[in-house]
């Protein structure tokens, strides 16, 4: 799975993108986020405020974190957007 981090979430994790093998038991976005936090304190810090974390699956916004990850190739994590 390709994982991308943006803005201050990227600054906190210290990486812009990575390729990871997700453990087989991770089925949903929520499961993925919980697993990510356990990977080290930089990840825990990046995700410490769940309401400030936005997720996109294959470049589409995901507003329901119970959504399954089956078939997904790219997960992006970022704070609320400030474009425009």
């Amino acid at each position, binding site marked *: 799975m390709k994982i991308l981090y*943006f803005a201050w979430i990227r600054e906190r994790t210290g990486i812009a993108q990575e390729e990871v093998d997700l453990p087989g038991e991770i089925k949903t976005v929520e499961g993925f986020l919980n697993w990510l936090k356990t990977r080290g304190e930089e990840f825990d810090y990046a995700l410490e405020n769940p309401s400030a974390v936005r997720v996109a699956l294959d*470049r589409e916004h995901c507003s329901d974190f119970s959504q399954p990850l089956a078939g997904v190739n790219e997960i992006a994590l970022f704070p609320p957007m*400030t474009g*425009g």
Partner: protein
Amino acid sequence: MPTSPKGPIVRIQSDDFDTAQILKRATRDRPNVGAVVTFTGLCRDEGGKLAALELEHYASMAEAEIKRIATRAYDHWPLDQLIVIHRYGKIAPGENIVLVIATSSHRQAAFEAASYLMDYLKTNAPFWKKEHHKDGTSDEWVEATDKDDKALERWKEI
């Protein structure tokens, strides 16, 4: 009748753009267009404190997402043209950040489409602004505002 582009035009670029010139091109030889609305978003200097704004973006998604939003607007309102340009990278105060042009034979369609586009760009386009200050205080990420989320409520039906 002039040939109309099929659907919106979306450009994401680091270079600055010339609103006046794009506007001129968009309205030339289109005798069926009665109403043209443009929105230009400019980098404010925040009372002289801002050295530059830096826009980080998720390139592949930004393009896909803006096209999705623009296509929804294009399908909903009777538009002739819909042009969206969004910059990324370092932007100096006074420079352009974003441009939306909507042309139509109906003024309200042009106003609403441009306003809708901007409300969605603000909250759904994957760009993040960081402020660089002149006085050397540390750089700061711009925070999203509730006001921008609330602006979306007007468009629930679309």
